[in-house]
Structures are given as structure tokens and as C-alpha cells.
């Protein structure tokens, strides 16, 4: 592949220890947004062992449904098998390594490898091996029994959100999410039925994956500037400069996000204010805990954007979708899938409460399309900035520049606005009102911690040999 001047310098030796120290004190070496050497480390130390979102259970609703999703370069088939269990298998034939399933979505009881015809049930089990006796001498040569496509080393889910980790010793997902799960519920558990996830729209942007993750985690400061146009055209009534800083940012567990401050009212009034019909409000009151309701009803904060380390983000907003004063809320789940140090594939899903009235679902979808995703009017301006930033970070000067990411704290570390008390903010973690970069620092500190702490290399997995006893891992 030819290199052009938008790509990061290939051979510049990075002072890793210095980079991590700078990042931890909120001074960001600008080249981290376009650095091939760092990207190689990110692949191993971050994407090789973090929990990575792959699909929601509603995308594989009935037995046989499957979607094919990637973790970086590794393709996985996410299926619901005939027993109704969710499975994730590495999409590589055990024989010569052909990609077994080459569609992105569908329904199948079996996957047959096109190369030599090995076939696998949708629970991953190898069931067909042509000429097993003639070619291998049967079980004595190749143990077919008990063989299955390589399962994802770790698989877990939360509110139907399926994650996999390439680390077989990954901690349970709930532990990984930690207190962020409290906030994840707002996006994914508005009723006992949870969400329906639709999409994703997928497109590639010439931007480093960390920029979107940081932006969604905590960048309330960009809203009044970047998104001026959507306020001007009457699409959005909230992001006026003076409004956004009244919101709180929070960091809890392995993720953090932003909120808007709502006008006075109780839980019902404030939830209706952003456009939820009363029947949905009633269901939320059944599924959200008392503390979750108090963040909205008492504290007056409504969740907006958020990011879970490393690359999964959420957004909840409430634009006008017709020529009236009514607003309609929508939820988007999005993933910043790295392609290289300067390219990211965005996967942007639309999420809606499965029990919402049909009319609400349609209008919420319209709100999503107008605001986010490949054609979204918010997203358009965001991406333009991120592409430009990535491009500018490629050269020698960016290696010298330390970007100041210390918004919200003085030189001695004192907070510009003190953290909200437990009475002002009933959610877990630490929350602040006002503009700040606490969350961006939290995210990048985790980034530095991962790169700084090399993962244990994974063991090879042999298949079919007697020595391996069938398969090392089932």
C-alpha cells in the first residue's frame, strides 16, 4: 500500500515512558493520534484483552440468526444456536483457514466452508468432514468429535449487549464495566424487554479511533461551537453554550459520559420534557432503580453522550423532527473500530426500547437519521474535525507539541468546579458540572496503563491432533 503524507511517520522512535507520563498529567503528545508504532501496541495491549462490543441479542433474535462482526482484523460469527444460546466463533475454518461465513447477516443452521466442504452447526460444532476415513484414517488421524470453530476466548453480555474479549482470562464483563453499568441502563433498559438494535450503518473515516471515543466520553465544550448549525436551523434546542456547561460529566468504573441539565420538574416531567410519552416513563420507573431515577428526577441531569473504554460510545439526544415544538429522543450505539493509526470504521446503530409504541419508534428513528450516523447533521461536523486533527498529527511538529488536556483543573490540580456531592448527584463515580476534560483524561490514562502493562502472550490452539486432546479450549 502506498503511503501518503496523511499517514503517521513510520520510523519515529517514540519515547514510550515519556509519552505515558505526559498523558497521565493531561499533557497529550499530539502524535498519539497518528502513530503507527503506538497503534501496533494498541492492537495487542488494548484490543487484545479489553471487552469489545460485537452485537446486541436483538440482532440475532431467533435461532439460526447470525451477524458477522470484527475485533480489529479478527472476524467472529455471532449466532443464536438452536437451543437459543448466543455463541461467538472465530470465522476461520479449522482445516485450511478459509473464512467460513462470508455474509454479514443471515439465518443458517449450518455453515459450510466453500474450500473443501467442512461444515459446522450454528453452535460451532464440526459436523461434516468429507472423506474423513479416506483422507485421515478417521478419528485416529483427525479427531472430529468435540471439534468446533474456535470460540471467542471470552464471551459475556449485559442487558443483551454482547461483548467478547480475546483474553481467555478476562474478568467478568460486569466487573469490567463496573459502576458504568448504572449509566448503561439508561440507554439499554428503558423497559423489561430492553432495546431493539438496528443497523449498523458503517463507514470509514480518516481519523484515529481515540478521538471519537474521547469526544463522546466528555467533550461538552465542543457542542456550542461545532454544532452551531444544528441549533441555528431549529433542529436542537439544547446545545446553547450557557446550557451545556450546566450539565454534569461523570466517570464511573470503566466509562464516563455527559449529561444535560433539565428545567425544574420531577422524574415524569423531566423525562417527558425530552419527549418520552407517559407510558414509556411508567415502564422506566419499573426498570430503573431509585438512584437511577433520582439522577433525573431530583438532580435534573439527563444522560447524553458516553464512552466505555476503549471504543464503544452511546448518544441520547432529543431533536425536533417536524415543524413543531415537540422533540423526540433517540439513542445510538456506536463503535470506533480501528483500521489503522489514521483510519477508523464507524459502526453506528439505532437503538429503541422494544416496548415503545410503533409511532415513537418511527419518529425516534427519524431523529437518529437527522442527527447521527452516516448522514447525521451532528456527526458530519464532528467527523470533519477528527479527520483534520488526525491529518495534522502525522508529522514531526506534532511530536513536539503537548496538547493541554487539563481543562477543569488548575496547575496545582485544584478543581475549577468542585465535584458534585452525593446529594447533588445520585449516580456512582465522580461528577462535575462545567466544562472539563476529566473524562478524556480518564480514558487516555486507561490507554496509557494498558500500553504500559504488556499482556501475556496467548497460547497456540491446536486442533484435531491427539496431543491436543481434541481441542485445547471448548
Amino acid at each position, binding site marked *: 500500500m502506498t503511503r501518503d503524507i496523511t499517514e503517521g511517520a513510520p520510523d519515529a522512535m517514540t519515547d514510550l515512558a515519556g509519552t505515558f507520563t505526559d498523558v497521565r498529567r493531561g499533557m497529550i503528545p499530539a502524535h498519539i493520534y497518528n502513530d503507527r508504532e503506538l497503534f501496533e501496541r494498541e492492537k495487542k495491549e488494548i484490543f487484545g484483552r479489553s471487552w469489545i462490543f460485537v452485537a446486541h441479542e436483538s440482532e440475532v433474535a431467533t435461532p439460526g440468526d447470525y451477524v458477522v462482526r470484527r475485533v480489529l482484523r479478527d472476524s467472529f460469527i455471532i449466532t443464536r444456536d438452536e437451543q437459543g444460546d448466543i455463541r461467538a466463533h472465530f470465522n476461520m475454518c479449522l482445516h485450511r483457514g478459509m473464512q467460513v461465513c462470508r455474509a454479514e*447477516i443471515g439465518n443458517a443452521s449450518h455453515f459450510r466452508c466453500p474450500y473443501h466442504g467442512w461444515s459446522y452447526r450454528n453452535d460451532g460444532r464440526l459436523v461434516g468432514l468429507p472423506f474423513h476415513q479416506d483422507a485421515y484414517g478417521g478419528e485416529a488421524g483427525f479427531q472430529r468429535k468435540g471439534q468446533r470453530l474456535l470460540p471467542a476466548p471470552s464471551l459475556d453480555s449485559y442487558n443483551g449487549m454482547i461483548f467478547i474479549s480475546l483474553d481467555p482470562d478476562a474478568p467478568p464483563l460486569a466487573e469490567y464495566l463496573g459502576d458504568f453499568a448504572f449509566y448503561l441502563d439508561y440507554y439499554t433498559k428503558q423497559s423489561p424487554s430492553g432495546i431493539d438494535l*438496528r*443497523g*449498523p450503518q458503517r463507514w470509514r473515516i480518516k481519523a484515529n479511533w481515540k478521538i471519537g471515543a474521547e469526544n463522546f466520553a466528555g467533550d461538552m465544550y465542543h457542542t456550542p461551537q461545532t454544532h452551531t448549525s444544528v441549533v441555528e*436551523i431549529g433542529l436542537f434546542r439544547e446545545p446553547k453554550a450557557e446550557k451545556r456547561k450546566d450539565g454534569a460529566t461523570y466517570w464511573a468504573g470503566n466509562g464516563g459520559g455527559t449529561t444535560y441539565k433539565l428545567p425544574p420538574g420531577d422524574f415524569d416531567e423531566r423525562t417527558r420534557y425530552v419527549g418520552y410519552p407517559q407510558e414509556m416513563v411508567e415502564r422506566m420507573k419499573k426498570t430503573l432503580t431509585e438512584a437511577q431515577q433520582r439522577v433525573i428526577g431530583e438532580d435534573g441531569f439527563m444522560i447524553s453522550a458516553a464512552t466505555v473504554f476503549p471504543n464503544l460510545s452511546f448518544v441520547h439526544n432529543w431533536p425536533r423532527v417536524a415543524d413543531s415544538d415537540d422533540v423526540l429522543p433517540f439513542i445510538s450505539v456506536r463503535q470506533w473500530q480501528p483500521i489503522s493509526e489514521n483510519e477508523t470504521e464507524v459502526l453506528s446503530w439505532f437503538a429503541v426500547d422494544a416496548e415503545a409504541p410503533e409511532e415513537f419508534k418511527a419518529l425516534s*428513528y427519524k431523529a437518529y437519521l437527522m442527527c447521527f450516523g*452516516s448522514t447525521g447533521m451532528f456527526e458530519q461536523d464532528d467527523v*470533519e*474535525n477528527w479527520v483534520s486533527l488526525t491529518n495534522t498529527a502525522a508529522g514531526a511538529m506534532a511530536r513536539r507539541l503537548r496538547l493541554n488536556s487539563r481543562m477543569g483543573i488548575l496547575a496545582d490540580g485544584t478543581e475549577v468546579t468542585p465535584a458534585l456531592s452525593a446529594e447533588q448527584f445520585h449516580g456512582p463515580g465522580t461528577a462535575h458540572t462545567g466544562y472539563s476534560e476529566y473524562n478524556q483524561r480518564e480514558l487516555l490514562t486507561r490507554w496509557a496503563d494498558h500500553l504500559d502493562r504488556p499482556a501475556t502472550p496467548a497460547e497456540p490452539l491446536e486442533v484435531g491432533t491427539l496431543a491436543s486432546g481434541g481441542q485445547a479450549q471448548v
Partner: protein
Amino acid sequence: MTATHSSRSVLGAHASRIERAGSTLAFDDSRHLQAHRWLVDEAWLLDAQDYTAWLETLTDDIHYLMPVRVTTALGAGFDTSPGMAHFDENKYSLSRRVARFLTEHAWTEDPPSRLRHHLSNVRTFATTDAEHLVVESATLLFRNRGDVHPGSLVSAGREDLLRNTADGWKLARRTILVDESVMRMQNLAIFL
């Protein structure tokens, strides 16, 4: 047939359901010539980003749809993402998109992209209604921004429903079938 995409889409209930009748019109048929001219003129408006004039060429009941394409096994019976599209627009949402470009703060198009909509494979069909034509075309959009980035391309087939009005032919329904499942363009701050 692409008209069925419109009827299956989430937000297309308001769209005209008129469909093609019969085979293609001859290339010297005046209806084909009118439809072809309409498309060429439209391509010029889109290249020039004269979106105010472009909006005028759309009927009030326009349905502007661009499904998300997905790779599916042969015989799966579908190749678009169920319930998801890139565009699923009516006149109001298109007018908001245009209004945004007219503000001074639509940064994604400041500086503006250089656009070229290449148009080909135009086939015109009569419909059961004399005031409507169905036109198929292929479009290849080249878009370039700034100086250092290579340009990007979108290739798509389109099926349009044109309506003859007092102000001439207008677009009443468009289905854009893009040829990629993963778009290689940073955003779709353009129209196809």
C-alpha cells in the same frame, strides 16, 4: 425492483406507489429525452451545491431513500439492512439538511468539497399514469476535500419517480442503491 424498498422502508408511508409499466422507452422517445435532461440538470445542481434550487425540483411528498446495503448469502432474499437506511427522508428533513448548509456554520462543507456526479445508464419507463415516469440511472460521485487527502467515490444505482407538474418535472420518489456495504466517505453531507 427498487420501488419495493420505498414501500418497505420505515419512513416511506407517505410516498407515491406508482410503478413502472412495460419495458424501456426508446432513446428517441420525447419522455426519455425529458427525463434524461432532468437528471443531467439535477447533476449540475448537485455538483454546484445549489441545494435551494434542488429542493425546488422535489415534490412535497418526496421520499428520498438510501438503504444500507449488507452482504448476504445468495438466496437470502434481502441485501439491505432491515429497518435501517442512510437516508429515509421527507421534504421536511431534506429542507433541514439544506437549511444547515445555508448557515455559515456547517463546518463539514467549509471549505466546500469539489463534487462531480457522473451520470449514466439512464433507462426510462412509462407508468400507469401519464404524468409519471420511472427513470433508472447509475451515478458515480467523486468528492474531494482540501489538498492532501485523496478523493472518495460513491457508486450507486437509482430509481426515480418523476411527476409532471405545472412547474415541469419534479422528483417524487428516489431509491438509491449504493454499491458498498461500508461507505468509504467520511460522511454523506452530499446528495446522490
